[in-house]
């Protein structure tokens, strides 16, 4: 059972550990204010009665309100103090503890012991769910938050563990003893188990044939069953994508997301956090795989969506995160468009936002000089995931901080790729101006010899023709050419904008409007 441990001071506390005491911060884990008692009792009842709407209200609103009012910088009452108000219900206590730890991570700094205890709680919770004995219906928001927080705490732990330099003897001993806590195998296997046990991949497959109603029901079970395992399994696919991106394995990450069709609405869009997380990592993985057009398309779609809907989330606890991811994706979009200028793929609204934030920088990035590389570095570092080193430290070697290693590697390889594309921007400029030009002439203008120019032109072709997951070649080039002996012929660029999907959406939308109109009774 976790108790608020004063032995390890929170990292951001200005008060030295020795002078802290229960009285100073006024936290008594066993004191349960009436409002908390009421909260627990009602939440417990609603969960037993499967009142999903009420559960969602309490989870989203009441919990936040109470946290803001009573627990601004202390934890909630301990689960032991609350348990007897809820019949000591084992599952409810696991859920309460999950919220307890999430609150702790958000408002305070967890100690190592608390991190380990949180891991234990997730293990217990997931095991209960995996054994199929859970009979609740929980709101999608909560189920997403569980997976999201699980991955976040794993990432946080890896970062924490990699800062070995100032670790105390006690911390090191604890780390060695509890080497299973937040072990990468454990994390991945739990997510994988949730995906498998829920049979979510098969369910999504069968849905295409009309044999399942999972998406149509937003994941909820209207046959008296539970949505918990299925929806946790579903969100775990997004969780796996995220973990693989943190490890630098973009190919496998994308494979994990594959069962979800991101060209359509789905359960992943029912919670804005899951929608953004899925697309952010999908786009980032495609960027690292050099599938720039794909990344641009998806970033464009989600940025437009956020622009239109963020006002509705102003009061929600996720608002700050939404804004942060929004900014990061604009940075990634700026990178993609600098490497692959396909401005026609970007919506006008998104484009004007982009110009405002990064217009100046994008111009400088396309010069490919030292300053340009500095800007690529800056944007990548700002927008990239918090990469981790998954292996445990060697406790024998001198204690150093290696928490930046993973990030430095990804950045280095990314900039290496950018450097390889350095000369392409020059080619592009000339190709836009000529319809035909001899190799000799172009070599002159670019101040290189002919063999070098041939090399540069082949690089252009290679870099602008990406290989997709099925091995198919697709052109990302906004301006293209072919060579006939020693003559370059520029090919007119075809717009890569998709009208087909747009028209389909409008047809469906109009039908919806007409149906609504029909339903209006005129008095």
């Amino acid at each position, binding site marked *: 059972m976790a108790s608020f441990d004063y032995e390890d001071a929170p990292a951001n506390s200005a008060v030295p550990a020795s002078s802290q005491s229960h009285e100073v911060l006024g936290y008594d884990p066993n004191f349960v204010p009436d409002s908390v008692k009421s909260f627990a009792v009602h939440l417990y009842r609603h969960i037993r009665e499967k009142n999903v709407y009420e559960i969602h209200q309490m989870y989203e609103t009441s919990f936040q309100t109470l946290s803001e009012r009573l627990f601004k910088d202390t934890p909630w009452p301990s689960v032991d103090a609350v348990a007897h108000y809820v019949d000591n219900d084992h599952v409810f206590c696991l859920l309460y503890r999950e919220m307890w730890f999430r609150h702790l991570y958000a408002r305070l700094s967890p100690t190592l012991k608390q991190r380990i205890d949180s891991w234990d709680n997730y293990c217990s919770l997931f095991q209960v769910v995996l054994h199929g004995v859970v009979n609740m219906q929980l709101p999608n928001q909560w189920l997403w938050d569980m997976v999201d927080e699980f991955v976040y705490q794993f990432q946080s732990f890896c970062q924490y563990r990699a800062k070995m330099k100032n670790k105390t003897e006690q911390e090191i001993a604890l780390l060695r003893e509890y080497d299973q806590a937040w072990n990468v195998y454990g994390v991945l296997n739990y997510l994988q188990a949730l995906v498998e046990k829920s049979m979510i991949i098969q369910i999504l497959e069968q849905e295409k044939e009309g044999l399942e109603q999972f998406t149509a029901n937003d994941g909820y079970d209207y046959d008296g069953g539970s949505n918990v395992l299925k929806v946790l399994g579903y969100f775990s696919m997004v969780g796996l994508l995220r973990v693989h991106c943190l490890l630098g*394995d973009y190919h496998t990450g994308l494979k994990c997301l594959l069962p979800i069709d991101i*060209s359509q609405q789905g359960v992943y869009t029912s919670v804005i956090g899951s929608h953004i997380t899925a697309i952010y990592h999908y786009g980032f993985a495609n960027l690292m795989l050099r599938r720039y057009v794909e990344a641009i398309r998806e970033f464009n779609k989600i940025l437009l969506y956020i622009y239109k809907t963020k006002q509705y989330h102003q009061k929600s606890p996720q608002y700050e995160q939404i804004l942060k991811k929004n900014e990061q994706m604009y940075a990634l979009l700026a990178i993609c468009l600098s490497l692959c200028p396909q401005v026609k793929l970007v919506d006008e609204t998104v484009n004007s936002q982009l110009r405002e934030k990064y217009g100046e920088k994008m111009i400088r990035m396309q010069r490919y000089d030292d300053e340009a590389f500095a800007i690529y570095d800056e944007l990548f570092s700002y927008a990239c995931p918090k990469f981790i080193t*998954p292996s445990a430290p060697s406790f024998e070697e001198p204690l150093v901080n290696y928490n930046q290693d993973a990030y430095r590697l*990804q950045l280095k*390889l990314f900039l290496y790729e950018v450097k390889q594309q350095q000369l392409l921007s020059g080619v592009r400029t000339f190709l836009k101006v000529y319809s035909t030009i001899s190799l000799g002439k172009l070599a002159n203008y670019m101040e290189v010899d002919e063999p070098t120019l041939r090399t540069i*032109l082949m690089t252009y072709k290679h870099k602008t023709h990406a290989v997709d997951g099925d091995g198919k*070649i697709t052109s990302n080039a906004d301006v293209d050419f072919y060579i006939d*002996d020693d003559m370059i012929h520029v090919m007119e660029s075809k717009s890569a904008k998709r009208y087909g999907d747009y028209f389909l959406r409008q047809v469906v939308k109009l039908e919806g409007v007409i149906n609504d109109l029909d339903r209006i009774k005129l008095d």
Partner: protein
Amino acid sequence: MGREREREVQQYTVEQLVAVNPYNPDILPDLENYVNDQVSSQTYSLSANLCLLRLYQFEPERMSTQIVSRILVKALMAIPAPDFSLCLFLIPERVQMEEQFKTLIVLSHYLETGRFRQFWDEAAKSRHIIEAVPGFEQAIQAYAIHVLSLTYQKVPRPVLAEAINIEGLSLDKFLEHQVVNSGWVLEKGNGRGQLIVLPPNEFNHPELKKNTADTVPFEHITRIFPILG
């Protein structure tokens, strides 16, 4: 016949492992054997190799640099697919600083930037790395032809020769073979030697470019059937 079936069963098993139980330290030896198997039987599995690199990432003490080297060579052979980069993302920086990996990174760099002459020169200096993996030369030649096919309708003979590292009589034989089997056509260039006409595709012939961006999958159309009906 018996050995082939054995290999078939083994491959089936390893691929299954990677699909069903990839986050499992016990399959590391199987994955290592599978790499050696890919090398000797000239097959390739990106998923299995990434799985192994991940396990090395989780337990660095178990990493075999020889296996990693072979994975990288196989990944390089998959070019134009970005497999080589995908593997590098999973290999710690200090390992990448070792001589054999620096060489492979240089080789990849030359291929990524169309510097075929420098590539073949460097490869000749590192025969021990290259010769350890059968099929390497052919894979790179296939890549060279791929890039040439993206770029040229008609390519001068010397450019082709440099790209695929074949000259003189061997090149003549090679060209003959391509004319018969791949639809290549040989032309006399204007005083500067032979011109090879590569088969037309959507990347070197603008008129063949399909506007694939605007094709709509049939399932999407089914969404509006109720409305149209």
